[in-house]
C-alpha cells in the first residue's frame, strides 16, 4: 500500500516497471520471496543467479503467465498484478521462453503474424506484411520465412522467439537465456541485436548465464539466490563482488582478470568444497567405471574408431567424412559451433542415425548398422543433449533404468557410487526427475549414463544453460571420472573448459574435422580463433555457424 501512495507522489515520473513484495509459493516451496526492484525508462537490467534461483518464475510473473502469491507489479505506474497475460502483451510487455516455444505447425512468417495481428487486429494486411518482413530481416530469418517452425534448428528457434517478442513492439522486453548454447560469434550477434533494439524499447530485462551479454549490455544487474534479491547494483560492481562469486560465478570469476577477487572467492570457499567432496567420491568408482582392458605395458588400443563417416537428414548432408579414434582411457573433445554437426555425430555413435557411408568400430566390432540398444549393450553410454530425464520417474528410478539387468547388490553399489559423486541426488532420490533444478538434472543425466558401467561415455553439451559454478562442479566430476579410467568423448561448445579436461581435441566445422591435436596444441593453434571463436568480422554473418 505504501508503494501505491509513493507512486501517486511521483506521478508521471513513474519508472517503467516497479515490483514490490513479489512472492510466489508452490505449496511449501518458495520460488520467489519478497522481491522488490524497479526498472527505469531506458534501463537494461541483467538478472543472474544459480539455476533454481527463481529467475524464470520472475519472468513468468511479470509476463502474466503465473499469478504471484503476494506482492504487486506496476507497469508505467499502473498496477497490472491482476491483468491477464494477453492484456499485458498488448500493453507492451514481450518475453521469450528459455526453451523456445514457437508455434510449431505454423510457418516462421505466420509465427510473427500472430503477435502483429494480436496487437492491431484490423491493421492493413500489406503494412503488416512489411513489418513482418522487416522483423525477419532484423533477426536474420528471411531465408526460412516459409519453413514450418518445427523444422527449425534450435538456434533459429531462439531467433524466432526474439522476433516474436519484438513483433509486439514491446516497451518492456524480457529475454530469458537467449544466449544459452551460442558460441562467441553468435553472442556477438546477440549483443549487437540487443543494442539495436534497445532504443525501440523503454527497458529490457535480460536473464542470462552468458556473462558477456550481461557485462556488455546491462547497466544494472540483480543477482537472485533462493528466490531472493542477493545483490543489486551497477553491473561492474556486482560481477566483481566476492559474495556473488561464491554463490554463482565460480571459476568464471577468475577469467575476469581481477586476481584479488579470485583469491577472495577461493578463500570464501567457492571451490575447495566440491573438490574435497569429490576426492572422497573417487574411491570406489570401480562399480560404475569399467576399467580399460589394457594389457599392462602396451600402448592403449583404440576403443572407438570412426572411418570416413558421412551422415545427414534426408537431403541435408551434415557430416562429410569424419575420421577419428578414441583410445581406451582417453578423454577426447569434439568442439565446434552450432550446426557444425556435433550432435549429429553423437547420434551416429549412439546408432540413432545411421551413416550413409563410412564405418564405426567399437572395441574391434563393427557397429555401423547395429541397433542403438545393442550398441548400448556393448558399453557406449550417452549423456544426451538436453538431459532427457524421464519426468514421471523419480531420481532413483531414472538411475536404475540404466541398470535393469543387473543383480540387486550390484545395482546398490552403482547407486552408491553415483550418490557419492553427486550427493545431492541421494537427498532428492524420491523426487520426480524433472522437478529438480537444471544443474541437478544434468547431474542425474550424467549419473544415469554411468549406471550401465559403460566403457565409453559420450557427454553431449553438458554445460548448456547452467550457472558457471554448476559447470565447474560438473567438470570436476568429469575429471574424477577420467582419472578413474573412464573413456570420455566430450561434445562441447565451451572450448576453455573442454581443453582443460581432455587429452585430444578435434574442431569440427561444416561436418569436417578442421583441426586436431592434443589439448595444448589446439589451445595454442593460431587458427583456433578464426576457426571457432569467430572474432573475424570480415567474414559474412552466419557463413560458419549456421
Amino acid at each position, binding site marked *: 500500500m505504501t508503494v501505491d501512495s509513493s507512486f501517486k507522489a511521483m506521478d508521471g515520473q513513474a519508472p517503467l516497471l516497479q515490483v514490490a513484495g513479489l512472492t510466489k509459493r508452490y505449496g511449501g516451496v518458495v520460488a520467489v520471496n519478497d522481491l522488490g526492484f524497479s526498472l527505469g525508462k531506458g534501463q537494461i537490467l541483467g538478472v543472474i543467479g544459480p539455476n533454481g534461483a527463481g529467475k524464470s518464475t520472475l519472468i513468468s510473473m511479470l*509476463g*502474466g*503467465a503465473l499469478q504471484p502469491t503476494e506482492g504487486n507489479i506496476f507497469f508505467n505506474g499502473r498496477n497490472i498484478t491482476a491483468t*491477464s*497475460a*494477453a*492484456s499485458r*502483451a*498488448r500493453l507492451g510487455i*514481450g*518475453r521469450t*521462453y528459455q526453451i523456445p*516455444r*514457437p*508455434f*510449431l*505447425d*505454423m510457418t516462421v*512468417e*505466420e*509465427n510473427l*503474424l*500472430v*503477435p502483429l*495481428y*494480436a*496487437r492491431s*487486429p484490423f491493421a492493413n*494486411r*500489406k503494412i503488416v*506484411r512489411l513489418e*513482418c*518482413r522487416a522483423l525477419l530481416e532484423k533477426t536474420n530469418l*528471411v*531465408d526460412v*520465412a*516459409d519453413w514450418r517452425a518445427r523444422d527449425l534448428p534450435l538456434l533459429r528457434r531462439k531467433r524466432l522467439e526474439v522476433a*516474436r*517478442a519484438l*513483433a*509486439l513492439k514491446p516497451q518492456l522486453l524480457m529475454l530469458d537465456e537467449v544466449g544459452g548454447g551460442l558460441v562467441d560469434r553468435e553472442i556477438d550477434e546477440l549483443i549487437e541485436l540487443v543494442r539495436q533494439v534497445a532504443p525501440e524499447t523503454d527497458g529490457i530485462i535480460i536473464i542470462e548465464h552468458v556473462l558477456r551479454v550481461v557485462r556488455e549490455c546491462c547497466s544494472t544487474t540483480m543477482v537472485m539466490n533462493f528466490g531472493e534479491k542477493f545483490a543489486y547494483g551497477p553491473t561492474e560492481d556486482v560481477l566483481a563482488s566476492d559474495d556473488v562469486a561464491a554463490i554463482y560465478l565460480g571459476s568464471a570469476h577468475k577469467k575476469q582478470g581481477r586476481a584479488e577477487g579470485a583469491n577472495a572467492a577461493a578463500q570464501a570457499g567457492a571451490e575447495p568444497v566440491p573438490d574435497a567432496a569429490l576426492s572422497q567420491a573417487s574411491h570406489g568408482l570401480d562399480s560404475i567405471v569399467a576399467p580399460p582392458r589394457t594389457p599392462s605395458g602396451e600402448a592403449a588400443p583404440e576403443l572407438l574408431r570412426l572411418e570416413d563417416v558421412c551422415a545427414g537428414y534426408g*537431403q541435408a548432408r551434415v557430416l562429410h567424412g569424419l575420421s577419428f579414434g578414441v583410445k581406451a582411457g582417453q578423454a577426447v573433445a569434439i568442439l565446434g559451433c552450432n550446426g557444425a554437426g556435433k550432435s549429429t555425430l553423437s547420434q551416429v555413435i549412439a546408432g540413432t542415425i545411421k551413416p550413409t557411408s563410412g564405418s564405426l568400430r567399437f572395441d574391434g566390432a563393427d557397429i555401423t548398422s547395429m541397433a542403438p540398444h545393442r550398441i548400448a549393450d556393448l558399453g557406449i553410454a550417452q549423456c544426451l543433449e538436453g538431459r532427457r530425464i524421464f519426468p514421471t520417474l523419480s531420481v532413483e528410478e531414472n538411475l536404475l533404468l540404466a541398470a535393469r539387468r543387473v543383480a540387486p547388490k550390484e545395482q546398490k553399489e552403482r547407486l552408491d557410487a553415483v550418490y557419492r559423486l553427486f550427493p545431492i541426488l541421494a537427498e532428492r532420490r524420491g523426487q520426480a526427475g524433472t522437478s529438480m533444478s537444471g544443474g541437478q538434472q544434468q547431474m542425474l543425466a550424467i549419473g544415469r549414463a554411468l549406471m550401465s558401467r559403460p566403457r565409453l561415455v559420450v557427454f553431449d553439451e553438458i554445460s548448456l544453460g547452467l550457472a558457471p559454478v554448476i559447470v565447474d562442479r560438473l567438470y570436476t566430476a568429469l575429471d574424477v571420472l577420467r582419472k578413474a579410467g573412464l573413456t570420455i568423448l566430450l561434445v562441447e561448445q565451451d572450448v576453455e573448459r573442454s581443453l582443460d579436461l581432455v587429452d585430444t581435441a578435434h574442431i569440427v566445422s561444416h561436418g569436417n574435422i578442421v583441426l586436431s591435436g592434443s589439448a595444448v596444441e589446439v589451445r595454442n593453434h593460431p587458427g583456433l580463433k578464426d576457426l571457432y571463436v569467430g572474432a573475424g568480422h570480415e567474414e*559474412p*554473418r*552466419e*557463413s560458419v555457424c549456421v
Partner: protein
Amino acid sequence: MQTQIKPAAHADAAACRTIAYSVVLLAVVGFPIVVPGALSSYGFEVGFRLLLLMTLAEAWNLLAGYGGLVSLGTASFFGAGGYMLMGLMNFAGLPVLPALLASAVAGAALAALVSPAVFRLKGLYFTVGTLALAEAIRLFMINTSYFGGATGWFAVVDPPSVQVLYLWAWVLFVFATIVLSLYVSSRLSIALKAVRDDEAAADQVGVRVFRVKLLAFMTASALMAMAGGLQAVKLGAIEPYGMFGISWSVDVLSVVIIGGIGLRAGPLVGTVFIVALSEWLADYPDVHLAITGLILIVVIRCAPQGLTGLAISLWRRRNGRRTQTGRADAAGAQSALERG
C-alpha cells in the same frame, strides 16, 4: 528484391487454390440440381446425406484441425438445431428458412453457454467433456416432457421432396464452404492456429485465447445446428435418441480423420469415402461398423494425415525429385548469395 514479394505471393497463391478448389467442388455437387434427371431419387437421398455430413465435417475440421479442439459433442449442436427448427415450425408456424437461421443462432448460443465449462478442459479432457455434454443433453431431452420426451416431435407440415432437400443441403454446404474458406484464409485462423500449437505462448504474445476459441466454437456450432435443422426437416419427426445420438459425433470424427485432419480437402474426401462404404455395405450393418473401425485404426496408425495427406505425399514422391532438387538449388543459391 525477389524475396520481398515472395510471402505475399505465397499467400495469394494459397487463396487462389482455395477459391479454385471451392468453385470446382460446388460446381460438381451442384450439377444434379441444374440438370434434371441426372440423379435418381436414391441418388438424391445419398447426395443429401453426403452434403449434410460434409457440412458437419467442414465445421468439425475448423475446430479440430485449425483450433486443436477435438470435440465429441457434435450431436449436442446438431440436435439443438433440429429441435429449434421443429419447435419454431410447429408452434410458431415459421417457414423453413427463418427457422433454419434461428437454429444457427441456437447452436451458437448453446456453444457460448457451455464454453466457460468446456474450455476449462484441455486436450483429451476437452474431448471427454464435450462427449459428456452431448450425453447429458440427450438424457435431459428424454426425461423432460416439455420437449416431447422420448417420443419427440412430429412435424405438422409434410417434408418437401428429396430434390428440394438436396437443393437446400447444397445451399447450406455452399454457405459453410464460403464461411470456412474465409475463416481459414483470414487472420482469424492465424490466431486460432497459434492457440492450437501453444496456448500459453499465444497468450504471452497478446492473443485473447478464450475469445479466439469461442469464435471458432460458435461458428462451427452454428453450422452444425443448421445441418441438424435440415435433418429434422427431412425426417419429419425427431426424437432425442436420433438427434442427440452419439453416432453423429463419432461419424464426423471418423470422416475427418480418415479424410485428413486440418487439410482443406480432408472432410470432402472422408465423407465420400465413408458414405460410399456405408452404401456399399448397407445390407451388413455389423460388418460395416467393424470395417469402418478397422479403417480408422489403420489410417491413424499409417497415415496420420488421412487419405488426402497420403495422396499428397505419394504425389510429391512421384514428382518430387525434380521439385526437391529445385528447392535445394534455391537454398544453395540463397546461401551462396549470403556468403557474397
